């Protein structure tokens, strides 16, 4: 079994286990030949090209955040700033990014947790129990994926406004209201996704649980939900990102009346920044703001990526 590959990855961190350590050790030993190496090289080439296509524009945004304004306009393409302008970040931070972050965090903590809980509860019941009304309710959730959000804008705003008259914490520009709206608008895809996931879980374990006398809700929380962990992680990432990047709903519902504190979230605030920078021509400040909005999600994603993989390998190794 040769460890030499045509590409530069000679130092493979995880060396293949010695042949014969497990049954089936001989299976592929003769196949690692010339064609394989060509194919391996081609894979790396294509994957690397696509990786550059993805990373280059992002790097460009980050590096533009470190340029001076005149350099952004003079040399838009260059990746290396003449000198590093860290104060772009300080300027953007005090221009409102700090409160955008706080509001976004407050809302996301509640909305993501509730979306996951309510979404998987509904999906589970719809996927694994037969009862009258099952299909209509499923189709009701599914149809939410098809409808253009901005058409509901005016009635939605009216509804929120009227609720706010009776229950002030559910009115416009309130965190709790935005949490509930996010949850409602995220349910469609969460239910759709978890529904197909719960359907792929084996019946045998559920039946075993029932035989052992577990109640329905106990079966869900202690058996099925842990088994659905890979799906939960995926849809969790999806919801965190989706709600972090949501700009239409907050722009519609988090408008502050004069005298009220501004409770803007990040994407909404960035749009305002990008509109305002037209007057101030603070390009580098905008790029700094975009970078600050971008990096936390990238970090969250990279952290969760590991968990996705451990969750999957745990699922595969039975």
């Amino acid at each position, binding site marked *: 079994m040769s460890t030499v*590959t045509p590409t530069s990855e000679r130092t493979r961190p995880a060396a*293949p286990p010695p*042949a014969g350590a497990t049954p*089936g050790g*001989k*299976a*592929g*030993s003769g196949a690692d030949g010339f064609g*394989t190496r060509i194919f*391996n090289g081609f*894979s*790396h080439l294509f*994957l690397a090209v*696509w*990786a550059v296509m*993805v990373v280059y*524009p*992002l790097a*460009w945004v980050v590096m533009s955040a470190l340029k001076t304004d005149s350099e952004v306009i003079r040399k*838009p*393409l260059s990746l290396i700033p003449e000198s590093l302008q860290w104060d772009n970040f300080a300027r953007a931070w005090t221009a409102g990014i700090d409160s955008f972050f706080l509001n976004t965090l407050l809302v996301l903590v509640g909305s993501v947790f509730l979306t996951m809980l*309510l*979404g998987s*509860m*509904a999906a589970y*019941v719809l996927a694994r*129990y037969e*009862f009258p009304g099952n299909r209509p309710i499923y189709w*009701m959730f*599914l*149809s*939410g*994926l098809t409808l*253009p959000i901005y058409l509901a804008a*005016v*009635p*939605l705003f*009216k*509804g929120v406004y009227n609720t706010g008259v009776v229950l002030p914490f559910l009115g416009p520009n309130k965190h709790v209201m935005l949490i*509930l*709206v996010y949850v*409602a608008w995220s*349910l469609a895809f969460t*239910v759709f996704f978890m529904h197909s996931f719960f359907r792929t879980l084996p019946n045998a374990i559920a039946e075993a649980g029932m035989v052992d006398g577990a*109640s329905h*809700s106990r079966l869900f929380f202690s058996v099925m939900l842990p088994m659905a962990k890979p799906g939960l992680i*995926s849809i969790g990432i999806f919801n965190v990102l989706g709600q*972090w990047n949501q*700009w239409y709903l907050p722009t519609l519902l988090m408008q502050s009346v004069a005298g009220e504190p501004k409770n803007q979230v990040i994407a909404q605030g960035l749009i305002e920044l*990008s509109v305002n920078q037209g007057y101030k021509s603070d390009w580098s400040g*905008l790029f700094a703001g*975009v970078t600050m*909005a971008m990096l936390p999600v*990238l970090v969250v*994603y*990279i952290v969760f*990526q590991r968990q996705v993989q451990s969750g*999957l*390998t745990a*699922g595969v190794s039975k």
Partner: protein
Amino acid sequence: MRHGVARFVTGFLALPVALYLFYVVWPFAQAAGYSLTDWGGYSDRQQFVGLDNYVRLFGDELIRMAFWHNVFFLITVPLFTIALALFLAFLLNVGGREDRAGIRGVFGSSLYKVIFFFPQVLSLVVIAVMWQQIYRADGQGLINGVLIKIGLVDADNPIAFTNDPAPFLGVPAVLWWLLLIAVWSGAGFYMVLFSAAMQSIPKDIYEAALLDGASRFHTFFRITLPLLRDTVSVAWVYLGFIALDMFALVYVMTPSQGGPNHASEIFASVINFTAFQKGQFGYACAMAVALAIFTILLAALQLRITRRERIEY
């Protein structure tokens, strides 16, 4: 026992359904109601006009054009995104060396996965700012700049990108450029999705195939792809929804939100234009209802075609 099930089902569904009804279904139901009126959106004056708005839809030239543009995206966005995502997932998971555990992924496959997913985490603002610079039509943009440097594009006549209404293969060029952004930002997500599905296929199936002398291409096309069918069809349905709602890209990237000269008009942009620019909210609602019905029919058809028995392993 029966009774317990009913209580359990109700208890689990009550809260999500209530929230969904209040914040999603009810606003849409109201919008559907407005579709039967001539409400402008701002005044309190509205008159019941019955199905007039719907009749008007069929004679609307703009709607017809938008419909065909939607059909274009409906076919191309899922097709190219899934093909590219499958190809990348294939290279990642099958491109590596073969050994006792079957064929392993290429070296660094987890790093590639992390990178490819990046566009998915970007907000609309970031994507818009970025691609506006990439697509700059004045020779300074990323693509024009590079192509002029290597002599493929005339410096006096750079590519116009989203300002270009001229047809390419019968479809306005601007749509192809928007398609590129959609595929660019979507491929990574579906690659990760397919990759996860590929890895959840039990190894012993591959071991058996390898013992039988199957090559990596055979195992991919005869085993992996058929077992991915469910995932691919879910991806297809979801990409279909995205394709029907390319509004964000059209809105940010094209001149006058659907231009130039209505060349990139899609259903959503026509709705937006009618509701908020022309101030015909009732008529716009009728368009949205028609679009929703069309979409639901399409989704039902899709699910019906791709439905088949579950495979448990």
